């Protein structure tokens, strides 16, 4: 039985704005799912709809097999970790954590046991009697997490919980959340617009755009086999080039004729390749899938050097290459080869 199942969710706000369209999402128990997408794509809206703060305009939500579509937040077995933490400023750390269980009428002994173990797990035993405004950002974040977990909810919902922390703390708390999740085994839906956070933490990533889900998959799948131009571009860097199908895996592109290992699907409209998937070759080498151009711009990045290369077709814009080791200078003519199995086909963003 799925921990959470949302079917055909859409959300139209009072002002007529459609923030979500036909969202289908099934999350298995113990899974860590990340909602990833640009600002304004509806991540918070989806999370609040799942939590019950917004009524879904259409669709159905099940939590632990029960239909909760019409239930208010206080009746749903979810707990939310807010971006602003939303700790109760008048309650101590321990009282904050204890709030939910007390509300739910959990017996006292059980409440105490939960409190003690959570305080230990989030390493806040020394701060149990402090008010939230006396805590550092990372500590407040951990209180918010412990408060959500104290409910023993079927699903924990995180809305960009780390965005108020500095880079280093972020990294640390991120690891702590993941470790805790593995230890306790709660189901998590985690909103972020930081792609590296999404790739690093998740069992599965849900990429959203304009209120729709573009692609769902394991981080490796999402990165290695993007299905849309949007996903390819949003996760990592990608070169996208339109093509014409010549049949048999051969395509005609503004870069010249190329051969791909797998033929394109019917609705594909771009070829896509990652900047690091190329191999520089001798300028004179005549071989399959070799593209020539002039280096226009060059940025040293440490592990690799990023080249922006102008190819014959000026309208196409510059192609991005990542080259390890010695890289050609600006203005140099280069030739590079794309492996046939590095060429992928993607749908256009809006398809």
């Amino acid at each position: 039985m799925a921990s959470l199942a949302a079917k055909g969710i859409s959300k139209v706000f009072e002002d007529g704005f459609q923030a979500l369209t036909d969202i289908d999402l099934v999350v298995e128990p113990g899974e860590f799912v990340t909602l990833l997408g640009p600002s304004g794509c509806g991540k918070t809206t989806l999370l609040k709809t799942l939590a019950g703060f917004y009524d879904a305009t259409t669709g159905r939500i099940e939590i632990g097999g029960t239909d909760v579509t019409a239930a208010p937040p206080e009746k749903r077995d979810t707990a939310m970790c807010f971006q602003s933490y939303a700790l109760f400023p008048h309650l101590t750390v321990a009282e904050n954590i204890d709030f939910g269980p007390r509300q739910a009428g959990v017996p006292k002994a059980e409440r105490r046991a939960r409190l003690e173990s959570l305080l230990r797990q989030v390493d806040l035993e020394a701060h149990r009697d402090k008010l939230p405004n006396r805590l550092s950002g990372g500590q407040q974040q951990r209180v918010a997490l412990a408060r959500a977990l104290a409910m023993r909810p079927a699903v924990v919902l995180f809305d960009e919980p780390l965005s108020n922390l500095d880079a280093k703390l972020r990294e640390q708390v991120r690891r702590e959340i993941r470790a805790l999740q593995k230890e306790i085994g709660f189901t998590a839906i985690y909103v972020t617009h930081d792609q590296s956070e999404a790739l690093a933490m998740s069992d599965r990533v849900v990429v959203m755009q304009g209120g729709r889900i573009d692609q769902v998959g394991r981080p490796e799948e999402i990165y290695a086999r993007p299905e849309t131009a949007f996903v390819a571009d949003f996760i990592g860097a990608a070169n996208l080039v339109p093509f014409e199908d010549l049949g048999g895996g051969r395509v005609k592109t503004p870069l010249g004729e190329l051969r791909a290992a797998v033929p394109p699907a019917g609705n594909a409209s771009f070829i896509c390749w990652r900047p690091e998937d190329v191999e520089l070759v001798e300028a004179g080498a005549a071989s399959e899938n070799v593209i020539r151009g002039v280096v226009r711009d060059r940025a040293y990045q440490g592990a690799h050097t990023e080249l922006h290369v102008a190819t014959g077709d000026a309208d196409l814009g510059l192609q991005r290459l990542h080259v390890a080791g010695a890289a050609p200078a600006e203005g140099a003519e280069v030739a590079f080869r794309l492996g046939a199995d590095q060429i992928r086909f993607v749908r256009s963003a809006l398809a």
Partner: protein
Amino acid sequence: MVSLSDTAPVAPRRPRRPAFRRFTISNMLIAILLLVCVIWLVVPFGMAVLWSLLDPSVRWEYPDVLPPALSFARWIEVWNTTSLPMALRNSYILAPTVAVTTLILASPTAYAFARHDFPGKGAAQVLTLLPLVIPGFVLAIFFSALIFSLGIYSRFLSILLAHSVLFLPYAIRLMTVAFSNVRLDLVDAARDLGASPWARFRVAYWPALAPGILASLIIVFIQSIEEFAVAFVVGAPNFTTIPSILYSYLGYNFVRPNAAVVSLVLVIPNVLLMLGLERLLKSANPAQTGVKG
């Protein structure tokens, strides 16, 4: 008749439920509240207006719902035969003077609260509220004893002094907010760009201070116009203000239409000033958010 659903296009995805719920709860509450407000405000004020316009030649008695004849005769009569013109003059000379005096007295203290940190500042700020927590008539009576023993005989000066002290808490509070809204980065930027002190005041201080100054002037003005305890205890019977006149009409010589006239004379300028103040406070908001950001 064919049922509508047969012909209407099926629209299963309309967000019906929330719209309906909004209608029942919120709109009904608003409707009820508006009704209460009508009873709360429109009925009492409507009655006062009708009474003030009641023609002296007729009587408005049960069971007439509306007065039989209306005219401005009462207004003219009150104006010509009572001390209302003098009271108006007194009140409208006193109140602006009080407003300006209070502003001048309040500004240095407000500046200190907004721009300096010193030990005991919290306590000092609480102490400025003292005039608000002394019951008005206690203050009025023993203030009159004080000026009597000091030998101050000018009623005007006495009331001016008492009103200034009474309303200082409002002015200090408003001006403290105004002074803390002055953006020091703007002051520095102006200096950096070589602005003269006057130019600095104009670009950095005045925009933040102006709403506070105006709000303080208006609030103290309104309060002074309607203040009754001091004006009555210290001023009566030589120095009449509008509230003292109204009091006499409500007490020993109760004349309903005259009381209605004086009530309206007292309350109408208030309403106009309040509308101005509301607008002012709204326009002051950008300045405040500018400081936070």
